[in-house]
């Protein structure tokens, strides 16, 4: 069997991976193509049509200001997905940098790791709310806040990969023949962190989307002018018993996307490291 057919048969053996990929792809697609799918303006207020239950005209109903929840959910997906991807990218880049630094440069290790310990000792939700509020609230504050809360894990991960690899024979051999450190790093270490990083980035995408929802729900997230899944639900909070669809519909989108990211992460993990594959 060729490598490709092994891959395909392994993916085929996990139907949930297919489902996750399809669901995620579909949600990304409808979010990107939102203007083509819904004619309703997600920001247009319509006081005459407040809190209408789901109907043919408004598939997800309308909110307390008469805005179409379906349109808001599709447009909100753009922002929420963007936040997920931005955080995952930033966490990966920053985590890789400091992880490599800690793993390679002895004296930075103790400083970086103490900071990581300290950051991890602060409950993530409190740290993120504090940073988001202090950074002024808004899309970039939220991205920054979630990044700070998530980055220690990746620094730790990269560092542990570096430390494991450093003791291995092929690195010692490379060193023995006089390969400079930066080359060892780019040729041998970084390629070996890619697998673990991609898996983590996938999980972090999902976690960040959920995180945005919590931050907005608690009042420290995205301001209400631009719809995100989090702030649509936050605005639905006061009318939850009158118009539950304002929270439920975007909530289902969040759950589906996070579920898909988690499943993709699990799938990638099994694929990249078949030893840990769950054979059940």
């Amino acid at each position, binding site marked *: 069997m060729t490598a490709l057919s092994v891959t395909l048969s392994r993916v085929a053996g996990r139907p949930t991976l297919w489902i996750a990929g399809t669901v995620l792809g579909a949600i990304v697609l409808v979010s990107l193509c939102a203007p083509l799918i819904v004619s309703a303006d997600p920001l247009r207020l319509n006081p005459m049509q407040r809190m209408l239950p789901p109907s043919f005209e408004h598939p997800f109903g309308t909110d307390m200001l008469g805005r179409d929840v379906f349109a808001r959910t599709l447009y909100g997906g753009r922002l929420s997905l963007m936040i997920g991807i931005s955080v995952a990218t930033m966490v990966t880049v920053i985590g890789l940098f400091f992880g490599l630094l800690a793993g390679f440069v002895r004296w930075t290790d103790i400083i970086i790791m103490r900071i990581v*310990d300290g950051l991890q*000792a*602060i*409950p993530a*939700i409190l740290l993120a709310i504090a940073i988001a509020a202090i950074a002024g609230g808004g899309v970039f504050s939220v991205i920054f806040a979630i990044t700070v809360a998530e980055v220690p894990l990746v620094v730790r991960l990269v560092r542990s990969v570096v430390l494991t690899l450093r003791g291995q024979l092929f690195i010692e051999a490379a060193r023995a023949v006089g390969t400079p450190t930066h080359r060892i790093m780019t040729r041998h270490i970084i390629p070996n962190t890619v697998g673990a990083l991609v898996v983590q980035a996938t999980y972090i995408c999902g976690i960040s989307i959920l995180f945005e929802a919590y931050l907005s729900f608690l009042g420290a997230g995205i301001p209400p002018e631009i719809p995100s899944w989090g702030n649509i639900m936050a605005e639905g909070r006061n009318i939850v018993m009158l118009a539950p669809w304002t929270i439920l519909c975007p909530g289902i989108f969040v*759950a589906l996307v996070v579920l898909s990211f988690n*499943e993709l992460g699990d799938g990638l993990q099994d694929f990249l490291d078949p030893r840990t594959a769950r054979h059940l």
Partner: protein
Amino acid sequence: MLAIIAKRLLLIIPVMGVVSFVVFGLLYLSPTDPAAVIAGDYATQEAIEEIRTRLGLDQPLLFQYVHWLGNVLTGDLGTSIYENRPVTTVIAERFEPTISLAISIVIFATLFSVPLGLFSAWFAGRLVDRLTMIFAAIGTATPLFIFAYALVAVLAVKLGLLPAYGFVSIREGVGPFLYHIILPTLSAGLAYSAIIARVTRASSIEALNQDYMRTARAKGLGVRKMIFGHALPNASIPVVTVIGTRFATLLGGVVVAETVFAIPGIGRLSVDAILHSDFPVVQGVILVMSLVYVMTNLVVDILYTILDPRVRQ
């Protein structure tokens, strides 16, 4: 044993040092001027300057940090700007609901998820197991206020079985306490119990595949003895770890549940303090919660050495 505890206690010092630095730094990264917040909306520039001098906010940063840390170490967390009372008092008042809820969630999650995970491991690959895994996946992916509102809508509003909000101290009777805490526990505990179920399942599958289990089966041990005598003690170790490492998940759930159910706890206090720019309270809460987190992990590590003799070496 004592040496391990002493060593772990010493390790807390640098961690809390960094936490204190971050917590203190947060205030100075903020564009909001604490003196202006205290002075109020209609204060004159002189009044703001006077407050700044009185609080020592015009001093060099390092000096302020040392001064603040000195106060913190003697148990003085400053005065709340919003409530004009000592931060320690404000936090102490709010502590009970949060701790009650957190403990209640841990108890619920353990009682519910450990048997579920074990059961699911025993029937690995079968329908029960699949359903458990689906529950675990959904439980960790759904924003937990969705569950909270769904439970409120059905159990509180529709059926009127439980109150939709509020908190009653356990000192006012176990009945009313439980009556009020069931819904917050169920809704906030879902994500947490999903994680515990998953971890219990994974560690139980591993425990069930060990040689000693085959030996147990070979010598004709009953199913109950196999599970409770061998599998459960061995599978319980990672579960204890989860309680420590996932403290943040637990606290996140508590914060959200306090908002949904209008529980006057630390979570709501911290969110309000952050939104009101009540810096001393923000610093105090983060410091106290981090200390609780670190101490929880210490206790978990100690439990770990008790449960698993191999770690002691």
